[in-house]
């Protein structure tokens, strides 16, 4: 690496920044820009500008989008890096959220534990500092990732997706029905746990209107997750994940320990899910079980797919865009549209169509996502060689369906073929 850095710097003479410092600097610049905008610029904009930002880009929806980014990056490790389709990722979010609910509120009034807490010293319940709870939540979720993963990771793609889906259904149901576990109130049932303590930094606590500082906190968590994602990916573990994603059998033959590697992907993904859960609990100020349903898992998946599986920046972009559309964009656009044209259309109800449509269209036309990772792009466009050969294709031409013989000439002439990106001489049938 030491040799590599000056070489890269030389190639771009305008930027004398070492390669590995580029993303932290760019990220910090963007984060500081947004912080300054919401701290200085927008409050001094005058009424018109303030209304615009309050309606279209309120800081609370930016914060929520950051929580989604944290979680989507976690799912990206599982799906994008290791290729394990997880349809129940919301379970980790929920587990993280409830960790915060248990450890940062007066819910367990039976005990009285204070640990650098932000709450009053006299309040009953467990009040542990937000920063400690972040660590505890991450660890708790990692343990659960291993518990869920250990028996199930032997399974192959479809079955794995189903089992994770099963866990993603069971865990929220446990929280919903957990108000009477053998007579013990564990989760307060459908009422959830509110309020959760505010974030405390030293003796300074963030109230409900200190959104700008909360933003800083969330940006810090995002940077931690991005750092973990990028560093792990370059290392030995990340390469093992990619190997498993591309060909499990070949990877195991080459000496990659399958179970351990898959479990670590699950655990690391779950850590991010746990961080997101704790952050979400403080963002909303409580945890409610019906916030953790299947559509969250699908939204996360749509974020990863839209942005580009495996690419951290793509996933971040996808998560920011979809979270904004979901929380602010669609309702706000609907309100404007209805005002403008005098209609009465319920735009937020269209998010089903939107997310379903995104998944379908992306899979049909751009499987690699908006900002694809180069490797994913190649793999997703490459049909398996045996499939092509068994169709009787010579490997140069797109393979026709043999039972469409009368159409063969015209289809071959009319249908465009994707240019060969794989370099293996196998074009794709469109």
């Amino acid at each position, binding site marked *: 690496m030491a040799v590599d850095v000056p070489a890269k710097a030389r190639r771009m003479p305008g930027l004398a920044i070492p390669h590995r410092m580029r993303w932290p600097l760019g990220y910090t610049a963007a984060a500081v820009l947004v912080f300054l905008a919401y701290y200085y610029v927008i409050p001094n904009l005058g009424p018109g500008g303030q209304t615009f930002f309050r309606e279209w880009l309120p800081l609370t929806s930016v914060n929520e989008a950051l929580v989604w980014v944290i979680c989507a990056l976690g799912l990206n490790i599982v799906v994008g890096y290791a*290729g394990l*389709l997880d*349809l129940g990722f919301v379970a980790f979010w929920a587990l993280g959220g409830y960790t915060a609910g248990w450890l940062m509120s007066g819910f367990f009034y039976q005990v009285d534990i204070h640990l650098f807490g932000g709450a009053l010293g006299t309040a009953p319940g467990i009040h542990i500092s937000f920063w400690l709870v972040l660590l505890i939540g991450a660890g708790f979720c990692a343990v659960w990732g291993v518990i869920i993963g250990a*028996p*199930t990771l*032997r*399974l192959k*793609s*479809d*079955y794995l*997706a*189903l*089992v994770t*889906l*099963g*866990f993603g*259904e*069971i865990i929220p*149901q*446990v929280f*919903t*029905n957990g108000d009477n576990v053998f007579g013990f109130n564990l989760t307060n049932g459908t009422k959830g746990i509110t309020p959760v303590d505010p974030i405390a930094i030293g003796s300074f606590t963030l109230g409900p209107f200190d959104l700008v500082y909360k933003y800083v906190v969330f940006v810090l968590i995002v940077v931690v997750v991005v750092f973990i994602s990028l560093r792990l990916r370059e290392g030995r573990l990340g390469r093992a994940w990619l190997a498993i994603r591309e060909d499990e*059998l070949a990877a195991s033959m080459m000496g990659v320990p399958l179970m351990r590697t898959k479990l670590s992907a699950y655990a690391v993904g779950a850590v991010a899910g746990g961080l997101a859960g704790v952050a979400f609990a403080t963002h909303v100020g409580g945890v409610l079980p019906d916030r953790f349903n*299947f*559509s969250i898992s*699908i939204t996360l*998946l*749509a974020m990863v*797919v839209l942005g580009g599986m495996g690419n951290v920046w793509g996933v971040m972009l996808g998560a920011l865009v979809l979270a904004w559309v979901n929380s602010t964009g669609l309702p706000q656009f609907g309100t404007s549209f209805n005002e403008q044209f005098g209609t009465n259309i319920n735009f937020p*109800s*269209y998010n*089903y*169509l939107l*997310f*379903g*449509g*995104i*998944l*379908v269209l992306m*899979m*049909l036309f751009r*499987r690699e996502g908006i900002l694809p990772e180069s490797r994913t792009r190649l*793999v*997703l466009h490459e*049909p*398996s060689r045996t*499939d*092509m050969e*068994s*169709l009787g294709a010579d490997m140069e031409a797109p393979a026709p*369906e*043999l*039972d*469409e013989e009368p159409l063969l000439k015209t289809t071959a002439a009319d249908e465009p073929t994707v240019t060969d990106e794989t370099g293996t001489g196998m074009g794709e*049938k469109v």
Partner: protein
Amino acid sequence: MAATATSVAVPAAIDRKAVIQRYATYVILLGLVVWLSANLINSPSQFFSAGMVGLNLGMLYALIALGYTLVYGIIELINFAHGDLFMLGALFSGFLLTTVMGQEHSDFLGIVLLLVTIVGTMLFCGGINVTLEFVAYRRLRRAPKLAPLITAVGMSFVLQFIGLKWNGSTPKQWPSVLPEGSFGIGDFQVDYSLLAVIGVTVPVLLLLRWVITSTRQGKAMRAVAQDQDAARLMGVNVNRTISFTFLIGGALAGTAGVMYQQVVGTTAYNLGYQLGLIAFVSAVLGGIGNISGAVLGGILIGLIQGFNDGLPYGFGQKWSQSVVFAILILLMVFKPEGLLGRPTTEKV
């Protein structure tokens, strides 16, 4: 193949695993038997009525599960949109029977119109399923497995959106044209609605069996399920056969939708997701790709759910979803090929 040194160790490892699995299965089955007999001794009439409800549900699950199993058997795709197709079928049948034909109570005409509705809904759902296959799945047939699965999830959301617009966000009540009440056999009461469900489901299943075993198209389906390429070489039109499979699967989901709408009487836009997943678990329980397995699995899951919801020693209704998924997870861990399925080996 394996070198001689390892060939000694491999059978021992497989044996130990198989033994553990076998004993785990025995323990689970024993627990099940103990649970059921405790309930039976406790209150036989409650046991019987819970069984009735379970059987009723199980018939519907079997119908939906068949759609999953047919599609999975032929192109190895978990068609997540199938449950939502069932939901649309339930909505369509209510629309057709109540709104278009105006039948709101049970009489002779009601039964005739119900049969018309069943045929109409079968065509409607079959048509949607074929369209889905044509629009989305066909192009992804040779793609990596992740792609069609995600597409199916997306399609499920699109269908849910249609259901949301059609049904509204709150559950909707429908009148039933099935005769109400029950008749007694000894101490036990049997609902007429159960008879209606059996009266519709069993002929449909027999028809399906006949189609698959005896017709030309059914033989083509079995051939394609076994080996697409060999079937193609033998002159089977693979694309048409797959479309036909989707048609049949959709028609079965439509039938289930009609019966659900008539028996339960409430539809909601997110109904398909819950029931579809349970039906999928049934298909997996029976051995996915196996047709009698899907029926068996559906009825078993229905019975388990009925017993769990209705019996004093059960977990109760609020846990029924968790119970079904716990069965799924246990099954996946111990016997992923299902009760009647054959274990598949990985092709290299």
